């Protein structure tokens, strides 16, 4: 049996990262759980595939003309700071911005880099950066939000989807909020939005956007917002929003959904209580106790009992499944492995229902059970088994070598092989169904008679078949 500590480390890395390889697990030996959490929260280490090499091999990624999901995939696969990438993914799911309208992926990548830079800081600062983020401003038409004629798109979504949630403000608050953000625009907004509308790359490729405040179209008059009055601008509105308990609850529930256990989709939150109200209360308290600091809330979450006890309560998102599998398979484990195959690999996540940089709507993706349709499940199983079932992949080769070395004498049973293979791909609780399925792989009479207590020769092919079965199991879909 795997030790409780090992199981907890695997759980932490599944949620705060993209899983853990056997070697990485070894390197955690002897480190206290709280110290591992601190390492994750504080890590700003670089990755093993630097940008310059990526851009040399994929020149189109230099300008982010296309392929930002592929670039992001390199980052997620190779990062030594997985929580940083996980938080970027978290905010991308909430502040969901899509290139289908922007036609300017480099601007969208700047937004994702902003999540990487500010995603664990004070929520007020993050919301301010978001409100000045050119991709978000164009996505929600704020360049058309003028003092003479407001466009309330951003004013509505910042309240409904980015901070407080439906039911915690009025229609008047939306209008007043929009007034406060008038003039928050991008430089050369007329030309830039025309190029975006026409998907124009002429004459010299896309020009990346930058924020520009236009005082001439900003409404300086008094506003009344969430019970407060004043000549508010966007900064004031963000301060007021971030001081609301509804905001703390909304962010807490998102964090719970992303890191702890699957919740119902956001539109149902108004009518459906949280799965664990006490956990949400704990996170809300942390939000205020630590002055809206997201990293502090994360620390409370990751060290809480409700987190530690939440194993296998979540269905992996397509990106988590794809990236976690590739980190295990080691296909991109050094900078000589930069290769065009990355484009096809990350496209698999699209087929499974999560196309990075193109969320289905401003509401982002519905998660949990909604990831699993019959077609998506087949894609998920096929993807994992193809990549972990390929002995030419360096990571797979290494896992097979480790297991063979660990089990090299013939005193080991099929049950031990199953456990070793499961643990190697991050599965610590193997169901009876999965065990039965593995046993069916063996034709030896002894296995048919003695089941998992049977002793068999541990050959590479055998290990590989069991590994492949493990990543095809129900358990591998969960984390």
């Amino acid at each position: 049996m795997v030790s409780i500590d090992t199981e907890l480390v695997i759980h932490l890395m599944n949620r705060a990262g993209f899983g853990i390889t056997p070697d990485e697990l070894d390197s955690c030996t002897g480190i206290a759980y709280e110290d591992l959490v601190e390492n994750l929260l504080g890590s700003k280490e670089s990755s093993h595939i630097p940008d310059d090499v990526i851009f040399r091999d994929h020149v189109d990624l230099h300008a982010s003309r296309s392929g930002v999901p592929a670039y992001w995939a390199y980052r997620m696969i190779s990062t030594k700071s997985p929580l940083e990438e996980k938080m970027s993914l978290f905010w991308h799911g909430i502040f969901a911005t899509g290139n289908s309208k922007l036609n300017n992926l480099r601007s969208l990548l700047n937004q994702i880099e902003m999540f990487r830079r500010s995603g664990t800081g004070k929520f007020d600062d993050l919301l301010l950066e978001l409100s000045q983020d050119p991709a978000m401003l164009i996505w929600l038409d704020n360049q058309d939000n003028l003092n003479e004629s407001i466009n309330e798109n951003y004013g509505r979504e910042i309240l409904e989807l980015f901070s407080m949630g439906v039911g915690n403000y009025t229609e008047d608050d939306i209008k007043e909020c929009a007034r406060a953000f008038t003039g928050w625009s991008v430089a050369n907004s007329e030309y830039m939005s025309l190029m975006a509308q026409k998907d124009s790359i002429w004459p010299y490729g896309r020009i990346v956007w930058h924020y520009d405040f236009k005082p001439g179209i900003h409404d300086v008059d008094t506003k009344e917002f969430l019970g407060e009055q004043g000549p508010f601008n966007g900064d004031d509105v963000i301060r007021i929003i971030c001081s609301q308990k509804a905001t703390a609850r909304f962010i807490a529930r998102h964090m719970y959904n992303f890191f702890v256990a699957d919740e119902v989709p956001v539109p149902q939150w108004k009518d459906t209580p949280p799965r664990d109200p006490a956990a949400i209360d704990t996170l809300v308290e942390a939000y205020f106790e630590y002055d809206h600091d997201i990293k502090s809330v994360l620390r409370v979450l990751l060290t809480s009992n409700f987190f530690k006890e939440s194993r296998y309560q979540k269905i992996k998102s397509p990106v988590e499944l794809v990236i976690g599998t590739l980190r295990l398979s080691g296909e991109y484990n050094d900078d000589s492995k930069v290769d065009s195959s990355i484009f096809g690999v990350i496209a698999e996540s699209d087929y499974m229902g999560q196309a990075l940089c193109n969320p289905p709507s401003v509401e982002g993706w519905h998660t949990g059970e909604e990831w699993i349709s019959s077609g998506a499940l087949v894609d998920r199983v096929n993807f994992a088994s193809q990549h972990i079932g390929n002995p030419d992949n360096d990571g797979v080769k290494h896992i097979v070598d480790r297991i063979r070395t660990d089990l090299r004498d013939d005193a080991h049973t099929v049950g031990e092989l199953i456990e070793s293979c499961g643990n190697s791909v991050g599965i610590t609780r193997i169901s009876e169904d999965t065990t039965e399925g593995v046993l069916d792989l063996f034709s030896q009479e002894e296995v048919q008679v003695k089941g998992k207590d049977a002793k068999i020769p541990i050959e590479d092919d055998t290990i590989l078949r069991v590994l492949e079965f493990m990543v095809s199991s129900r358990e591998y879909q969960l984390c």
Partner: protein
Amino acid sequence: MKTVKTIGINSNQPVGRGFNFPYDIAIKEDLGKSRTIYLLNRSNSATRMGTRIQYFTYEEDWIGEFGNPLEDDEAKFTRPVTLAFDNSDQLHVTDEATDEIKIFNSEGKFQRSIKLDSDSQGNGDRFGPAGIAIDSGDFIYVSSRYLNLIQKLTPEGRVVKEWGGTGGGPGEFSMPWGMDVDSQGDLYVADWRNDRIQKFDSEGIFLKTYGESGRGVGQFHRPSSVAVDANLNVAVADWGNERVQILDNAGSVINVLEGEATLSKWSHEWLDVNLDEREARNRADLKVLDLPDHLKNAYHEASQTEHKFWGPVSVKFDSENQLYVTEHSRHRIQVFEPAS
């Protein structure tokens, strides 16, 4: 140096005029009469559709193209990197994915290829030919990005000299890229990940290093290309710093170029039939930048304006000492001439 003109326009089409992530050029001159520019489009790395060589006059009169994915296997490219003409106007193209130099005549007809290998190293690793330069005797120099060495080949492809090795010492390399041979037969190599240019004689004897890592004047960040003019001045595509630096042969910086693009002939033609964009563009100010601190660096400044170099990957001189800077992320060539 002062700006002369800008050539080209972006295109995402797999055929026809317009550039799609141009990576290098070669210039064929009929002295006193005409200059024909051969431009390598690296294109979209996922599909490779559009990877090809286009050729056109200095005046932007379109002539043709070759090497696209629809051609026969022997004539098409996978991951082409650099171009060079020999003294018989045979265009040599390195392809780092297939470990080949493909050779075409000036009409784009495939002639033959030279297969490069690592047999002399005995390890069978990929060669990854990146840069290419051809001297007055038609000896071919090719840099290996994977093996970190330079090979000198006969025109037929027989290796006559090989030097290098992985490292940062004199004569060692880290993913070398572009190269040029000066009028005295010395070779200059953009030692990409060592952030320097190295100079060798024609037998591979190390002579000199130019530059060091950094962002300051005289420092380089991932230089991708080098070109030497008739006065032995050395132009360096300081790719990671989004600029071109020009040094005298002793190594003193005499010019730093950041780009000053104008509208090319093809750009004017395009805007003439897209008047809404021309008018909106005329009302815009694409040179004013007020960027937040985290975007105040060469890459972001280049990405958020239009006249500056963005991805200056290749530098080439013509016989009149005009400098051609190819920018992959702005899909154009900026041409400069000596100031005096």
